[in-house]
């Protein structure tokens, strides 16, 4: 649980973050979006005290984040940034071991953790552990950056545009991996991005920032249905709204009784994927198969159309 209460940050005359209050539930993904310069990074850095706020408090599990020295706080909070910030003079294994080493873990435990994380991120520990960062591809560097942030098993992980430097295909994969790992470690993630697609894909809740203020803090569905301001609406993109709405829920939620012809779709796919398949194959309905491969019903064009419709 992260409680952000009345946080403001001023640099001289300009207010960069203005009276922000948010409560972030444990084990969720919260995404902060907004245009460039709206104060997202600053707000994120206030959480692990890389920036000291002008006013306001932040509590982590009920404890003020100023109750211990800043460096000790940061060892408990994972932090991953765009361009990964890997230490070029240390091997991949040493990079990942940074915080455990600072915390004084014993060697065997560190090694086990490094191996676990590398395996989890689909990097062979024997092949990649001893390499230097410049010997990795961009996507691999980024994964090592996230692995380093997770090494000391932090309950909270802060990420500042972590996928900003990746190409679209690798980015999509990295996002899926992140969600899987979040489930695995039950980490609370606060992620900054300016990419709305990414926000809707990852977020349990989205906070939209504009000129230093949080103008809306809501679930993706609420935000689509009821954007708080014109700014939020334009950020979402009016033309994208029905598709974003469908992208949030899975086919399982839209299953109707009945049968349909042709190729089936998995119940775990998103409704947007179902719509896409319906339109492309020119059918009115698709059969839906459950996790065990058995047909559990159908999903129809009409049904999806109703779900994608905004409030009237």
């Amino acid at each position, binding site marked *: 649980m992260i409680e952000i209460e009345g946080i403001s940050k001023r640099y001289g005359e300009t207010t960069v973050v203005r009276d922000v209050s948010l409560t972030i539930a444990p084990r969720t993904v919260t995404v902060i979006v907004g245009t460039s310069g709206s104060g997202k990074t600053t707000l994120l850095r206030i959480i692990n005290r*890389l920036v000291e706020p002008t006013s306001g408090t932040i509590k982590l599990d009920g404890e003020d984040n100023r109750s211990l020295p800043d460096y*000790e706080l940061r*060892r408990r909070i994972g932090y991953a*940034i765009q361009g990964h*910030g*890997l*230490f070029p003079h240390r091997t991949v294994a040493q990079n990942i071991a940074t915080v455990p080493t600072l915390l004084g873990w014993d060697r065997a435990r560190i090694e086990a953790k490094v191996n676990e994380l590398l395996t989890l991120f689909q990097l062979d520990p024997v092949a990649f552990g001893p390499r230097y960062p*410049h010997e990795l591809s961009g996507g691999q560097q980024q994964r090592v950056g996230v692995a380093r942030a997770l090494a000391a098993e932090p309950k909270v992980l802060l990420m500042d545009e972590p996928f900003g430097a990746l190409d679209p295909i690798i980015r999509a994969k990295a996002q899926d991996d992140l969600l899987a790992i979040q489930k695995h470690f039950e980490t609370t993630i606060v992620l900054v991005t300016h990419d709305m697609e990414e926000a809707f894909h990852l977020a349990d809740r989205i906070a939209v920032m504009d000129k230093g203020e949080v103008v809306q803090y809501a679930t993706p569905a609420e935000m689509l249905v009821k954007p708080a301001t014109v700014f939020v609406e334009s950020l979402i993109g009016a033309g994208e709204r029905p598709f974003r709405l469908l992208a949030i829920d899975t086919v399982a939620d839209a299953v109707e009784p009945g049968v349909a012809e042709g190729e089936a779709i998995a119940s775990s796919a998103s409704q947007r994927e179902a719509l896409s398949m319906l339109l492309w194959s020119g059918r009115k309905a698709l059969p839906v198969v459950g996790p065990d491969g058995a047909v559990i019903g159908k999903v129809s064009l009409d049904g999806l159309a109703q779900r994608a419709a905004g409030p009237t």
Partner: protein
Amino acid sequence: MLRLPTLFRLLAFAVLIAFLVQPQWFEPLLRPLVQENAPAIYNQGSLLQLTLLHLRTVAIATAGATVVALALAILVTRRSGAEFLPLSRSLVNIGQTFPPVAVLALAVPIFGFGEKPTLIALFLYGLLPIFENALTGLTTLPPSIMEAARGTGMTGRQRLMKIELPLAMPVILAGIRLSVVISLATATIGSTVAARTLGEVIIAGLQSNNLAFVVQGGLIVAVLAVLIHDALQAAERSLGSRMGR
């Protein structure tokens, strides 16, 4: 695998050692440079001993300069010393316009003759390139790496020891290399104030009009300088390539 340039250097090193230990072997080579009865090999002391003294003087001065320059550079790149950063840059620029000879000559009336003024002059002059490079190295670290270091929860001292100094090391080494090469040459001038360096050989040659002395003194210093320069450069390269520079 041994590449040709490396082979040349090893050869030069071997010849240098041979010359220092058994200079008579090279007598026929130097003989044409002198008049009839004049000695072709320096005969007023041991070349080996002078070389070692020369190297010792340079080593002491450079070691002192490295410690002080590095400490100063660290000081002015911390937040508490930031006020001094612009001034220290200016002072380095000003300092480097001072001719080394002037520094040496001015040290004599203060510190007397011999080793001392030479050491002081080499130390003072050697400070500048090391300090300048250490400043460059410590102030041009990639911001994303410094950010990550803070983000992982390193203390100021840990960041300095584990991130900043290792990353700046190739640039700092380049400064030390520059300083050593300047000092090797400047130390010879120390012999005009009675410091025991290879300059003795050269000055003896100038005084007795013995070209062979001048050549052997000069060449020993030049070969030392080239070998030390290249060795340090190789060290920088291997450090740098590991970091993917």
